[in-house]
């Protein structure tokens, strides 16, 4: 039996344990030990913005119930701190204990990066009073605790998570200002035009922005001073300025680390007995910080560690960014930093800032290579499908881009309807049959029904038949 030890009980570590047990439900091939530093069961980090927004309770975002480990033959140790990996003896030091491994998996995640603004950290290097990072379930509790209606809140960072937090807090009635060092929001995923439309939409939901400025100083009870000389009042500062992979253990153990623990397609580090997945791993230059790559990596690694598919490989994840914020519909995918005058690409762009709509579509040879869609939910969904499935985009690009924003076709009047058009579906009765019946003397809907059976099924075409009768009567020269 292979002894697998997973360091980290977050979304990646928990998922790996689940995936291993899905392949080896009775623990016949693999013994699993999970080491978690938080004291409570794993939770779904993706849903933390819902907890901040108040739509989900902290209990509702737990990934596992307390009996999970026992039920699945997993040795789960919570609240311990892993101090060291001894690769020679193949043991992990947890507090005063040693845990031996055949395969070690680092799923240590990432920690918030705190910008070098004066006063954010106190003398001990911990966050100052009134400052909360937005990373863990405990952070959420701290944020929610202070986020009563009318509270001035500053969010440091106008990236995906910062904006989700800002939206949630605005929904709670807080007075939210987002401070972002770049000139437009979500600059990694959006172009400036899209960033502007997004800001406009969010302003409409009560969020203020200070863009292209840095916070220079934080004073508890007062708020932030910015480098343009202005001041943002804040009883609460939420830090969401990015994360750094948690690589300390690996570094200390002499494993190769760059921005994350370097792994190959087999998710092996420079020590083939040590693996890394999730936010702490760096695969082909990418440290993702997103859940989907972590889950895909967990599935591949479970295939390998259980022997279910020893040759399984992880070849990267296509990322689709989707802002999870009520009343804001934003999707961004692929390479969007392409101008409409690009020679190699076909680029379509539609802007309707007044209505909060923005759509940019980048195509190469009919395939979607990038897109930003704001305020057009069905277009976002359709384009994502084309991108993920590698499907050619429909020839009618405009319809794709605008989705349901396209005006509906006018309902054809009885006169315009082609003779072969089926009016009564239930009985396959065409307009021409109705006209013949009318000419044959059936002048009312019920007389026509008698002859053609039109309207005798579900009855849904009664109005249409009536319309045709009226049209025929009106087009008939008046007799004396």
């Amino acid at each position, binding site marked *: 039996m292979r002894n697998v030890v997973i360091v980290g009980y977050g979304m990646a570590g928990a998922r790996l344990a689940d995936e291993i047990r899905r392949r080896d439900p009775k623990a016949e091939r693999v013994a699993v030990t999970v080491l978690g530093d938080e004291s409570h069961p794993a939770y779904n980090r993706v849903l933390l913005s819902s907890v901040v927004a108040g739509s989900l309770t902290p209990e509702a975002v737990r990934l596992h119930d307390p009996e999970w480990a026992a039920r699945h033959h997993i040795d789960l140790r919570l609240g311990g701190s892993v101090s060291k990996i001894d690769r020679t003896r193949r043991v992990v030091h947890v507090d005063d204990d040693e845990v031996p491994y055949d395969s070690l998996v680092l799923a240590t995640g990432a920690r918030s990066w705190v910008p070098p603004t004066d006063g954010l950290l106190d003398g001990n290097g911990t966050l100052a009073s009134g400052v909360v990072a937005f990373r863990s379930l405990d952070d959420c509790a701290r944020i929610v605790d202070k986020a009563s209606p009318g509270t001035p809140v500053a969010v440091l960072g106008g990236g995906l998570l910062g904006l989700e937090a800002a939206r949630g807090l605005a929904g709670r009635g807080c007075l939210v200002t987002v401070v972002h060092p770049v000139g437009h929001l979500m600059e990694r995923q959006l172009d400036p035009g899209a960033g502007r439309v997004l800001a406009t939409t969010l302003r409409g939901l009560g969020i203020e922005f200070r863009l292209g400025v840095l916070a220079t100083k934080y004073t508890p009870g007062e708020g932030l001073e910015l480098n343009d000389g202005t001041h943002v009042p804040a009883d609460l500062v939420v830090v969401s300025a990015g994360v750094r992979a948690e690589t300390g253990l690996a570094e200390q153990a002499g494993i190769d680390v760059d921005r994350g623990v370097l792994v190959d397609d087999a998710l092996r580090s420079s020590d083939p007995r040590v693996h890394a997945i999730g936010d702490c791993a760096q695969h082909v230059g990418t440290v993702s910080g997103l859940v989907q790559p972590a889950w895909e990596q967990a599935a591949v690694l479970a295939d390998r560690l259980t022997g279910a598919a020893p040759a399984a490989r992880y070849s990267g994840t296509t990322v689709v960014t989707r802002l999870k914020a009520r009343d804001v519909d934003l999707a961004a995918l692929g390479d969007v930093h392409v101008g409409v005058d690009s020679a190699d690409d076909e680029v379509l762009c539609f802007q309707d800032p007044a209505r909060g709509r923005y759509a940019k579509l980048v195509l190469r040879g009919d395939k979607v290579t990038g897109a930003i869609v704001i305020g057009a939910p069905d277009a976002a969904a*359709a384009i*994502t499908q084309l991108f993920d499935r590698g499907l050619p985009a429909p020839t009618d690009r405009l319809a794709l881009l605008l989705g349901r924003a396209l005006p509906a076709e006018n309902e054809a009047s009885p006169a315009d309807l082609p003779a072969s058009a089926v009016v009564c579906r239930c009985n396959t009765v065409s307009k021409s049959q109705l006209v013949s019946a009318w000419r044959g003397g059936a002048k009312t809907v019920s007389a026509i029904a008698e002859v053609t059976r039109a309207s005798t099924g579900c009855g*849904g075409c009664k109005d249409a038949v009536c319309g045709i009768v009226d049209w025929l009567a009106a087009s008939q020269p008046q007799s004396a």
Partner: protein
Amino acid sequence: MTDSPRIDTHCPYCALQCAMTIENGRVSPREFPTNRGGLCQKGWTSAELLTSPKRLTTPLVRRDGELRPASWDEALDLVADKLRELREVHGPDSVGVFGGGGLTNEKSYLLGKFARVALGTSQIDYNGRFCMSSAAAAGMKAFGLDRGMPFPVTDLDNAGAILLVGGNPAETMPPFVQHLRNAELIVIDPRRTATAELATLHLQPAPGTDLALALGLLHTAVADGYLDKQYLSDRTTGFDDAWRIAATWWPERVERVTGVPVADQRAAVRILAEAANAYILTGRGTEQHASGADTVSAWINLAMALGLPGTKGSGYGCLTGQGNGQGGREHGQKADQLPGYRKIDDPAAREHIQGIWGVDDLPGPGRSAYELLDALGQPDGPKALLVFGSNVIVSAPRSQHVADRLKALDLLVVADLVLSDTAAVADVVLPITQWAEESGTMTNLEGRVLLRQVAVAPPEGVRSDLDVMQGLATRLGQPAERFPTEPEVVFEELRRASEGGLADYSGVTYERLRQGEALHWPVVEESTPRNFLDRFAHADGMARFIPVEHRGPAELPDADYPLQATTGRVLQHYQSGAQTRLVRELNQAEPEAYVEVHPDTAVRAGLGNGQLAAVVSRRGRTLARVRCVPSMLIDVVFLPFHYAGDGRANLLTNPVLDPTSRMPEFKVCAVRLESV
């Protein structure tokens, strides 16, 4: 057939069982709660088959490779001799029986008895396995009882909102649509069907992703504050485990998998949750998958989260498809069941039925429908098959393989009223009576038992299925009285056999039905129009959340097969089309196989509207005429499954089975388009 009396009856086709009268060989619609005086084109033309020249009126026996007329004695003697011989050499399981969801309750019941008593075989199943089995399995798990609609159809009239998943009644049971008119209608279907056109909101998921969508809607129901906590604690168990999975299906993730916009997911949940009364209904589109049972469980979980099932004016139901799809699954033609919806591996159930049948032992559970067909002619599989009320060569998945298995049999016997595609390859064909020529009960989609009485005399030379069973049973040494041919006598026995079972018909009599009483089972004395109002059928009275996870289609598109095919129905045809293709007016309206394709996809395949195309999967190749439909998803094609020969949609379909219900994955497989 002149001057025959005016008789009240019901349509021979789908589970709505529209009420009509028949007089002088013509049908006309009749006021009834289900169809409200409406009939679709199939119903209006249903009498045509009574006098069709294509009607079989003499037994046929294959001699020198050709089916030739024979007398009943010749045909039945030949079948009985062969069955006896096979049984002696290979044991009783060398004979298989395949039934149908169009058979009356009496026939379904007697067929199960015939198989288990006269043939002694465990190898009996029926085409309802291809139809209702996923919904049935999920209903049993959640509620402890499976009645497609546990409320009368007319309850839908007062609904504020209805979520209809994978059902297309505007095409499959048009008069039913009348009951959807007052509600805000949400339709979930990969195609913009005629029913979707009627909807307030149409969600168009990629084929095979309904389970993810259902999990996502449950997620949204919780996140948007619509969870009915009081109902959950009073009437259900197991929510937390189901939620743990749904929690990982946040709307944006669901959108990426299904293609359904987040905004539409939210809107659907809001419409359902904010309606004073709401229903969730499922159809084959969401059920006919290798994960079909779990998918229905996910829809039921959503319904329970919103507090719908077992609540007056709200609920969950599935739309039964075949004429007697409901009754057909209750009385013992299913591989794992005995009459009264009893389980065949339950010792008490076996003892009860053995007592009724006067036998000491019964065979155990047998193979499910596709597994039975797949085993035909194999070393350990049946060597003979008797088919009643089914046309498997068209309706079973991977149909070329099924045709090959039928060829490998020593004996194929088909009882049918016309020379169906399956009958055409049989060794013996037995011509039988049809709906208006015989009496029998049908149980419609709302669990209401209906009596169809003899309205016209059958043509000379045909016999009823009940006669056929008695004829064979007596030749196999059974006493004649054990296999009565009078439907009412069979029904009297069925009443006793079902007594105390879940589907208890003991209080139903022909007399009560003749009086026009509305009897929804269970009927001990009183009818039960609505199940579950007080308690669910599990021992603790509670409904159960079933934790289920999305799996996706068994076969995903790839470079060789880049499209996904889904199958379904057209208004003018019923099931395999063996009957409706013979009705002139229906066949004129929809004469041949077609494939609906997005116009761009057709162009890319070098095809245009009206051209003949080959649709090719790993299992076969179907010829169908192209219909360009701009509302189709660009990588999805649709084929109706009613056509024979090269036009069989099921040449393509994937026979991978649901682990619980043994339902094949009819509704999604990978294909490519070719010009021919």
